[in-house]
């Protein structure tokens, strides 16, 4: 028995060490790719002249689709913010997804809407459209409101896709604040490059404590809430160091549902958003990429690192837990739906690297982490823990977590320089030092819960409570 235990311990220690080495190596390689991509992006951005694009009759038109469900407290301001975006040919489509509150009525009153007989080309299936509204005021000529029977976010986005008249569609969360030049910057990859671009994703930044007036970001501030500050670090790491690297390596599997632009024709031909997953944003990108690869069509998916989209991050552990739980279920659903890609050389980087990375380091990471912890506790009970190995490994993981977080601060400092006060840099550093003890265990817990809920077949989104950007707003 003792021999078996010794051998098992030796095997398990080795497996954990290999897993740690693999995860560290993949993060370092991704960071290297991100750094190269960021440098290249910043060099190119220097020669961009937004005014030319703004003034040109040759600029492509873009339809911005924003689903809204029970957003009465913020909808009027949010739509105002979307209408203020600078772009020459922008169509703003708000899809009221069967809200039970006053969302639609408030929009009708605020924008002087009236129903119009506009037929829809039903290329994608979705719930019935009750009515299509346009504004009587010429100033809002580019605003369209769709009122439909409730069917969820994916269903609302598919409705928008059918109604949109432009070749490109920007899908956003209605409560996000976009910078004025967001569309101009995000549309750039579609206008150049050797291979046609089918989708671009943007960085999402945390807007908690930032000053926002009339739907416009006035000044960027570090969140006062520690939980939101942890998320600032998380988002910088995920977007600037993760997705930027995957984009460079041509392996980007996720464009955040909060803000992305797509080639409408490809999105529709690939089948639009999937109603049966809570990770509809990731699932669509994977399906669009598969559509192109399986037909041997040249394409590319790009990522724009500029801070263009600002969102309110959950400021309580309860709400954050629901969000992360949903993200985990969405990841699992998408990975299982496209399991054909796993280590399939036909899908190149996507199948050989991106998919395995998401499987082992996103889906299974919390499971492996909790298994390691349980293993240590069992050894402790048996009186046979390898203290020095466990502590060394913990030290390595902690040191690496600190290193990656400081690297994220470094990336932000030398690229977009968002937090100008020196005090904010120290606050970020403090968050980096505390994160592995306070925030990370919770993330693991929600990851596990997400796995359990997936096995139970849970499909709901869960309520997201937001305080809103304006003073004293509380929405549900």
């Amino acid at each position, binding site marked *: 028995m003792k021999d078996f235990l010794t051998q098992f311990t030796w095997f398990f220690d080795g497996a954990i*060490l290999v897993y740690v080495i693999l995860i560290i190596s993949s993060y370092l390689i991704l960071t290297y790719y991100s750094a190269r991509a960021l440098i290249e992006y910043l*060099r*190119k951005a*220097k*020669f961009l*002249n937004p005014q*030319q*694009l703004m*003034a*040109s*009759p*040759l*600029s*492509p038109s873009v339809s911005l689709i924003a689903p809204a469900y029970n957003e009465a407290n913020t909808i009027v301001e949010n739509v105002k913010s979307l209408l203020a975006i600078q772009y020459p040919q922008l169509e703003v489509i708000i899809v009221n997804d069967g809200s039970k509150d006053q969302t639609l009525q408030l929009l009708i009153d605020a924008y002087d809407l*009236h*129903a*119009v*007989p*506009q*037929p*829809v*080309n*039903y290329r994608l299936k979705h719930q019935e459209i*009750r*009515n*299509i509204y346009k504004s009587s005021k010429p100033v809002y000529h580019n605003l369209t409101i769709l009122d439909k029977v409730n069917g969820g976010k994916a269903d609302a986005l598919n409705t928008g896709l059918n109604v949109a008249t432009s070749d490109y569609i920007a899908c956003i969360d209605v409560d996000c604040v976009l910078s004025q030049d967001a569309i101009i910057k995000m549309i*750039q990859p*579609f*206008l*150049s*490059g*050797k291979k046609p671009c089918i989708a671009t994703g943007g960085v999402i930044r945390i807007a908690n404590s930032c000053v926002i007036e009339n739907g416009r970001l006035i000044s960027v501030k570090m969140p006062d809430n520690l939980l939101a500050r942890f998320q600032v670090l998380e988002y910088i790491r995920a977007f600037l160091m993760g997705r930027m690297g995957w984009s460079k390596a041509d392996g980007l599997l996720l464009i955040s549902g909060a803000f992305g632009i797509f080639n409408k024709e490809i999105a529709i031909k690939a089948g639009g958003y999937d109603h049966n997953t809570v990770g509809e944003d990731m699932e669509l990108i994977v399906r669009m990429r598969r559509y192109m690869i399986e037909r041997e069509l040249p394409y590319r998916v790009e990522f724009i690192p500029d801070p263009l989209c600002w969102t309110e991050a959950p400021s309580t552990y309860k709400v954050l837990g629901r969000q992360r739980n949903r993200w985990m279920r969405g990841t699992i659903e998408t990975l299982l739906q496209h399991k054909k890609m796993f280590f399939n050389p036909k899908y190149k980087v996507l199948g050989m690297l991106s998919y395995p990375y998401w499987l082992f380091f996103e889906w299974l990471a919390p499971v492996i982490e909790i298994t390691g912890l349980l293993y240590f506790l069992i050894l402790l009970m048996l009186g046979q823990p*390898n*203290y*020095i*190995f466990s502590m*060394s*490994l913990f*030290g*390595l993981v*902690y*040191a*690496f977590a*600190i*290193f990656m*977080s*400081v*690297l994220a*601060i*470094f990336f932000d*400092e*030398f690229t977009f320089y968002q937090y100008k006060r*020196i005090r904010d*840099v120290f606050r970020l*550093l403090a968050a980096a030092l505390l994160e592995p003890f306070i925030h990370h265990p919770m993330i693991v817990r929600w990851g596990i819960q997400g796995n359990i809920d997936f096995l139970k077949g849970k499909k709901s989104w869960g309520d997201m409570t937001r305080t809103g950007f304006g003073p004293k707003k509380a929405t549900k």
Partner: protein
Amino acid sequence: MHKVIHIADDYIKSLGFTVTDGIAEILLFSLLLLFLAALLFLTVLLSRFRRNYLARWKTTFDEALEPLILDLLYGNYQVFDDWWKLPGVVKFERRYLRKKRGRNRAIETLSILRSRLEGENASLLSEVFRKTGLWRDSIRRIKSRLWYRQAQGIKELGEFNYVEAVPQIRRLSDHPQEEVRSLAQLALIQLDDSDPFSFLDDLRNPISRHTTIRLHAAMLQKPSLELTTFARWLNSRHPDVVLFVTRMAGLFNAAADEPLLAKLVLHENEEIAKAAILSLEQLGAQEALTKKIPLLDKGNPEILTQLISSLGQLGYSNQRQLRHWLWSKEYAIAHQAFQLLLLTEEEDKLLRLAADMPDDCAFPEIARQRTLFNKLATR
């Protein structure tokens, strides 16, 4: 390295622990990561000081340059040299323009100022660019091996109207890097008065939509350009060149190109065909487009949709033809035809037509929805 690992092993043993293989390496790697993190954070802090220092230096520089430029623009000097020999200018030149950083900042500031000025004032700033020898920096940049330096140099030479650089810039107009190529083509339109589009003759690399937008903007800003015909390139073998000039022929009203554009409507490349239709629409060539109807009627639906849309813009109202399109299986074609018919016929009468159509036609569905939405709208 082995020695360091050995020392670490000994140290761990001295603490009373049993050391297995690789532990010292893990600990040393962890320490290295922490050390690197500290170094990165220190760099971030130091960069803040450097950033502040540079901001102060730029303010001092701009404060010194600004009065001199204002003096040049509004000081009524007979010849440029009168200003150039002013003691203040000489002092500024000695203090700032003999260092690379000063010259780069000068180009940056003058470039921003020049973009806001026109006519004689803009020419005066170009004269400063020449007289101070800043052009040498730009020429040095376009000779660099790094694409972003080349692009920067081309941009500066174009902005300051440095026509002497045209031969060097022309060599870069088919550069493999899109930014360099695009900026070189832009600069040639700005600088080359004799043959601004000569780069289209032997272009091999693509012209992106972004470059088209850039070139179009540059063409608009140069009223002296004679843009009466693009015939020279409408038969080019390079599809991107044909697409570019087809678009420009419409935007610049090159009526002389109408016969060639009419031929391009039947081009195998969908983009070119659609652009030719749009250009003919911009030229008001309804007759030329009407003649193409029989040839396009059973072809690519995308091209036919564009044709119907363009004909609609030109006031086309042949009821028989429009009703024929109403029977199309393609939603977009039937919808376009319906929209045009609505301008001359009653909606109710048109919607009743749908009842006689087979189910595979797109119009019955459009009519059904239209009726439904009409009911909802008037409810």
